[in-house]
């Protein structure tokens, strides 16, 4: 995070939620730009591009998924969607439209801030870093070498590609479909069985003690690389 306070656009039609969020985010070191509709959000973002956006999926004048798509059409800012609907399909649609992550209402503000900081780190780190280092894990993108605690880890090309894509999108929740399309190609977009198998193999090689530490599972939606 930069020294200057990061500006975050928060769009939710519920004024009551905005009131609390403003204070909580302010305490966490963010400047909040509040919007109560899709149009307000898009206007505010165009006027003063924020560092990140938090968008409710249910808006009076449109769909949060559309807002994600439109923001993503001109900006790489991290987007977190607020979902009140326990419906995986809508979350996946938002992620595929460009959202980085989601939180489900009622969320803990602490959780939201943690996710927000994680996706902001992704943006500050993706500028073609040759090596990604997370705790004991080191991914040398130029040499295509992965080390854990200094020891080389032997990965198959598929496992390496998976890890590279996850790590390059650190903090971001990648849907099954996005990972499958990226690694195997669009014709394999529905083969989640293969994805799970490769993720399991990858975890066995890089996760210390078998506990998922770097690769987190979001059941039915996808995987994210944390750290």
């Amino acid at each position, binding site marked *: 995070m930069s020294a200057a306070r990061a500006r975050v656009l928060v769009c939710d*039609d519920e004024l*009551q*939620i905005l*009131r*609390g969020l403003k204070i909580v985010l302010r305490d966490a070191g963010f400047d909040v730009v509040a919007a109560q509709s899709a149009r307000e959000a898009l206007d505010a973002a165009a006027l003063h591009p924020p560092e990140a956006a938090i968008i409710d999926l249910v808006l*009076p004048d449109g769909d949060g998924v559309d807002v994600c798509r439109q923001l993503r059409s001109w900006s790489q800012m991290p987007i977190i969607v607020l979902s009140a609907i326990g*419906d995986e399909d809508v979350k996946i649609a938002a992620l595929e439209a460009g959202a980085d992550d989601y939180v489900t*209402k009622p*969320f803990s503000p602490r959780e939201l801030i943690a996710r927000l900081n994680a996706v902001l780190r992704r943006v500050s780190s993706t500028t073609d870093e040759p090596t990604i280092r997370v705790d004991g894990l080191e991914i040398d993108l130029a040499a295509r070498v992965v080390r854990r605690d200094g020891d080389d880890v032997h990965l198959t090309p598929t496992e390496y590609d998976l890890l590279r894509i996850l790590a390059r999108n650190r903090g971001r929740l990648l849907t099954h479909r996005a990972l499958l399309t990226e690694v195997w190609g669009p014709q394999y977009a529905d083969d989640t069985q293969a994805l799970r198998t490769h993720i399991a193999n990858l975890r066995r090689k890089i996760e210390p003690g078998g506990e998922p530490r770097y690769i987190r599972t979001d059941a039915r939606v996808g995987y994210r690389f944390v750290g």
Partner: protein
Amino acid sequence: MGRRSDSPGLVDAPRLPAAGVLAALLAVAATTLVIYPLRDVAPPVSAGVIYLVAVLLVSTYWGLGPGLLTGLASTFTFNFFHIPPTGGVSIADSSNLVALGVFLVTAAIASRVADIARTRAAEAERRRGEADLAADTARVLLGGATLADALPAAGQLIGAALGLRGAELILDPAQDDDRPGAALDLGGGRQARLVLGAGADDPTLARVSERVVPALEALLRAALERDELQAAVVETQALRRSDVIKTALLRAVSHDLRTPLTSIITAGHAVRSPALTGDERDELGLVVVEEAQRLAALVDKLLDLSKLQAGEAQPRRDWCSVEEVVRTAAAEVAGDDAAGFVLSFDRDLPLVQADAAQLERVFVNVLENARRFSGGHPVKVRARVVGGKMSIRVIDRGPGMSLAHLSRVFEPFYREGAGDAHAGSGLGLAIVRGFVEANGGRVRAESLPGQGTVMAIELSLAEQPSQTTSLERT
């Protein structure tokens, strides 16, 4: 089909022996009368042949006994009237013995042949009767809505076919039912009993258990199976419907409970901020109170709806004033916004018989709904008597609804435009319809897109309480 009642066919009409004897004597007498005048023109033997006709006829129709009797009687009569010396009987003559033998043999053969033919015809007739009965019973048992509905008609049918006063088909009979009849095994532990009315003798019972019971058992099994299938289909449909409702409920709960919860949780975290101004603290306190109230209102609605769906919203109907109820509801919905509703009531509005608490829920929901869509314009409420009914119209100047939405707005969880945050829980109007109908009224929505919406509630006006009663009460 048409021969059901007039020709039973399953039981034989008994043949009376007395009638056979009478027929034999009459036949002999008639033959004698016919041939007596011929005694001078025809030779006696050829005249005697004519008796054969009588023997044939009697043995064919009345059987061996009367046939033999006719043969004997013919021999004696012929001998008496035609064989010289006439007026006396002598069988000494060998030709007489021959005649007697011929008559008797003829009687025996004719009666035997006729018996066989008669038995076969009767058997064919019985089979036809059984086939007809089976077809008719199948039509009755499988054509009705349920087996239980069809049983009485099937019983009557069987009774009529057996020529009995009545027969009764009983499903799952009592163990100690010892009236004459037959037990039917329907498989799967189910039993039935065919109880035969008065006049059922042993041969009939035997015939029933041999010829009727197997077909009847098969039919009843088929009917039972069909009943079970139907019940299963109905149950599946009901389950599917309740699944749809459950899914919708989960979505509604998901959105409508989580949103205020999020506000409360966020406000709870925010209020602990060290850098809080006094205004902010007040604001956050208000958020918690208002959102908690919103949750409470939603819980009320869910309870109302679940009561209605469980059929437990029995109205406690009493005389109540629509004006009072509507004013109370408007005050509850309006809160501080007194200008939100414009109420107008005709003078001397009659009382309605309804559950006042339920009516209040009706108007709270209708008014909330109207206000949500009125776009800030006041909502008008007009109550008057139209066509002998109490008519209350709630008119908003909102965006209105298309015809497709109008037909569905009263369905639970239906929201116009799922993504519309103004749409509310989708429970309100379902509650409105539930309570209005429980109180014997009707509600419908009228609207044109762009021209606002009218919720028209109609309550029937019972006879008004008499003046004296109302005076006694005050």
